[in-house]
């Protein structure tokens, strides 16, 4: 009992420190004056309309969404068989494979981005393929950061699945592919939904790695925000952030409904 009280006593200030900037930024988005100052002169929604009419933000949003969708789809296609293999089979190099797939999680985004960039430079030199700053290169990078989350979320789902039901299906006449499609996939549906949402969020919000991979003219939403900030500091950015926070928050809440995130993170 007292342990619980203690936990709360420590958690409360921690949570406050984490949430306070979010609350302040969200509040800032509704200030009516251009130069952020305190207390606000009044409240308005003008920065939201400014944000939505700014072409860079709209196109950045679309590009981010597109890349997030594409890399999540590819990431899932890779992660489903990988997660099954890691979960089900004992083979040589299983531990190593698992670590490699989860590795992007522990490497700082800047390091990952720089490494990929150097790789692209070297690869382009030897193969003459246009890799640097290419769309494909960008997607590949994002697939890399999506995979660990997919593997983790699918792993949780798979470990909760009774292997007996696949045998039952085969006993009833289902071949392996049918068993996969009709029994296994529906069985890990919560994991699939969670992995899709989470993968999307991770890719959508990525800035550090993306900075190294984008080509001229390609700016994702986080990059568009950063570029805007270099020239102007007004509550438009806060409004954009609020929109992003709401979207990501919704996705995370939805994910948590399918696979409890505390079991993964």
């Amino acid at each position: 009992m007292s342990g619980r009280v203690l936990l709360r006593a420590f958690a409360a200030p921690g949570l406050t420190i984490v949430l306070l900037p979010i609350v302040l930024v969200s509040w800032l988005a509704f200030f009516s004056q251009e130069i952020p100052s305190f207390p606000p002169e009044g409240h308005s929604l003008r920065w939201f309309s400014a944000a939505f009419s700014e072409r860079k933000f709209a196109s950045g949003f679309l590009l981010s969404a597109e890349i997030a969708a594409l890399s999540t789809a590819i990431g899932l296609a890779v992660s489903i068989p990988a997660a099954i293999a890691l979960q089900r089979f004992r083979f040589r190099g299983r531990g190593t494979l698992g670590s490699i797939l989860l590795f992007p999680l522990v490497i700082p985004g800047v390091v990952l981005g720089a490494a990929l960039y150097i790789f692209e430079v070297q690869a382009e030199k030897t193969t003459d393929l246009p890799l640097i700053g290419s769309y494909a290169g960008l997607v590949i990078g994002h697939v890399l950061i999506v995979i660990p989350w997919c593997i983790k979320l699918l792993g949780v789902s798979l470990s909760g699945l009774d292997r007996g039901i696949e045998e039952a299906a085969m006993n009833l006449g289902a071949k392996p592919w049918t068993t996969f499609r009709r029994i296994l996939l529906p069985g890990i549906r919560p994991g699939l939904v969670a992995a899709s949402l989470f993968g999307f969020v991770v890719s959508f919000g990525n800035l550090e790695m993306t900075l190294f991979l984008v080509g001229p003219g390609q700016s994702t939403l986080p990059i568009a925000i950063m570029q805007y900030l270099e020239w102007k500091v007004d509550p438009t950015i806060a409004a954009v952030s609020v929109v992003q926070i709401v979207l990501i928050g919704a996705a995370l809440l939805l994910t948590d409904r399918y696979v409890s995130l505390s079991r993964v993170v």
Partner: protein
Amino acid sequence: MSRLVVSGLTKIYGNFAAAKDVSFEVGEGELVSLLGPSGCGKTTTLRMIAGFITPTRGSVTIGEDDVTRIAPWSRNTGMVFQNYALFPHMTVAQNVAFGLEMRRIGGAEVRERVQSALQMVRLDHLADRYPRNISGGQQQRVALARAVAIRPRVLLLDEPLSNLDAKLREQVRIEIRTLQQELKLTTIMVTHDQDEALTMSDRLILMEGGVVQQIGTPRELYNRPRSRFVADFVGQSSFIEGEVVAPGQFRSIQGALLSCPERDASGATLNTGKATLAIRPEAIRLGPAAETAPPGHAGKVEFVSYLGSRIDVHVRLATGEAVISTLRDLAEPLSVGDPCHVSWADASVTAFTA
């Protein structure tokens, strides 16, 4: 329905034999139980028949077909799993329909057969429920309906009753047996519960350490166990260890002189040397201490367990041997410490050399 023949079935993991040279037959419409203590290879054997484990040696024949190398999905066996393994994302009706869909049976016939399979287990009113919304006993019956609906050539039951509570178990036992007999299903049931095996089966296969110890009807196994293991595992027995000193004469370790059969359980002549006698509890008679006929032994009650329909009395003979007697009722109340007269018919004694 078809006959099942298992011959020389062996499964070796590394240098450990989970099943060794297992051979038996199950006739059309017969229910045979695989019985034995934990780890004796029952599940391994059943799963080799279903096709989930590839045998190291030996063959499985269903009807005229050698299915040893056939994939599980082509074997046409209906299996009921220990934990039922119902598909959680499908309704009861969809679960039962699954096997029929795999057989490319048309919609109208599927509906009809699902309906009749569910009626058979009296669950047609729950057709649209999901497995998590029905009780354990109902799940068990859905699993049975699902396995039976495909009209399997052999029905395989892996500890079908082990997840049910005692009361329900009795009832489901009767239900499964009745259904099996009505549909004349060739059936193998795995169990480690001897009561279950004795009450439900036409014949029993008793296994130990991956090896078949004895095959026979419940009556044969109970009355003519071929080894001490069988006498011990099927029903209760009092064992008296000692040696045969002359044909028909036995001296226990504690020194009591008893008469014994001239042949051992396998029918071979009992030579002098180490042996064990086994006596079933219902063959042991208890009488007042003053009694002298029939000739017997003086004993003392050590423990009385009251089981409702019967009473098990543990008695220590004056010479030191422990025996158990099962009584229907106590003519006069016996309590711990009471002296008594213990007797049994010579014919009820079985001798084992091992």
